[in-house]
């Protein structure tokens, strides 16, 4: 619960930064904060009460029946949100690098990072 609320607050802070700041680098930082908040929300959804990490190691109690099928006794967390977060972290990194390179290019062209000076891309 507390992780979910922290993630939600991070998302709101990031959106506020993205909408109110003028400097492009700060907008990109705001995007990263939104990204982190969303990761926290997804991880919070996958948690199960008193569960361990979903790695069936020697520390997790299992039983093996006569036909050799293993059944897990201890509670483990939902593996699907963890896998989704793993995916989204790498995508977030790549997208941030793309945005930074775009900002570098704009700075080289026009010598400013202020978003108000790039009026040609305004609708």
């Amino acid at each position, binding site marked *: 619960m507390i992780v979910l609320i922290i993630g939600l607050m991070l998302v709101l802070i990031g959106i*506020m930064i993205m909408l109110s700041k003028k400097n492009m680098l700060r907008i990109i930082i705001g995007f990263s904060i939104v990204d982190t908040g969303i990761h926290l929300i997804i991880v919070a959804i996958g948690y199960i009460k008193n569960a361990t990490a979903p790695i069936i190691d020697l520390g997790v109690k299992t039983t093996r029946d006569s036909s050799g*099928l293993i059944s*897990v006794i201890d509670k483990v967390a939902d593996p*699907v949100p963890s*896998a989704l977060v793993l995916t989204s972290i790498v995508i977030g990194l790549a997208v941030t690098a793309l945005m930074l390179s775009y900002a*570098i*290019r704009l700075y080289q062209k026009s010598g400013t990072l202020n978003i108000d000076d790039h009026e040609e891309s305004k609708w």
Partner: protein
Amino acid sequence: MFKYIFAILCVIGFGWMMWHLVQGFYIPDTMNEIADSYVSGSVNELKIPNTVTAVVVSYRGLDTLGEVTVLFLATAGVGFFLKRHRQTNAKRREGSEILKTGASFLAPMIMLFGIYVFTHGHLTPGGGFQGGVLIASATLLIILACPDCALPKHLIRILEGISGLGYVLIGILGLLILGKHSFLDPRIMDMGEWQKLFSGGAIPIIYSLIGLKVGSELSSVLGYLKGGGEES
């Protein structure tokens, strides 16, 4: 002034939208059906202790292929924006003695650790993405210590191409050997013993290829960012 009011209204609206998610949230006591079948299937059918790896590589393998594609496109975009037009001789500050010595000692070990992490991704916490990022961090250390050193661009490009191609070829091999509905099925190889390095069919190979691809792609992003900061 009007802009700030609008921004605050947007944030409040979004927060009100998400508040329903918070209100309906509860921590469940047991796993839902999908997670349960994924865990038991990864333990019994695929013989992989790390169920997250089973979901990433096998059950949702097509998503991972798409993700690797997105990563490739982002890298290509960075390279497109930061292509160096003319060779410039900007003065860069050399790394200090401590940084140079530390990097020459640590960078090979970090790379080796990255390789360990992605080859053991089906047994321990870790995997291709984490190992690839570790390799890229070793590259960053080398770039910081020696700003004038050129990265082996051709080697990185060839590694990236071969690992991506191998990933797709293993997927198609599943279609050829096991028949339809089995793209990227890891059961084309012997499943091996429980909790051994060579187990889980093709999953260690696929995850190693993903690790190589992520590592080489992020390294080339770092190389582009290093060369693109100067006036062209």
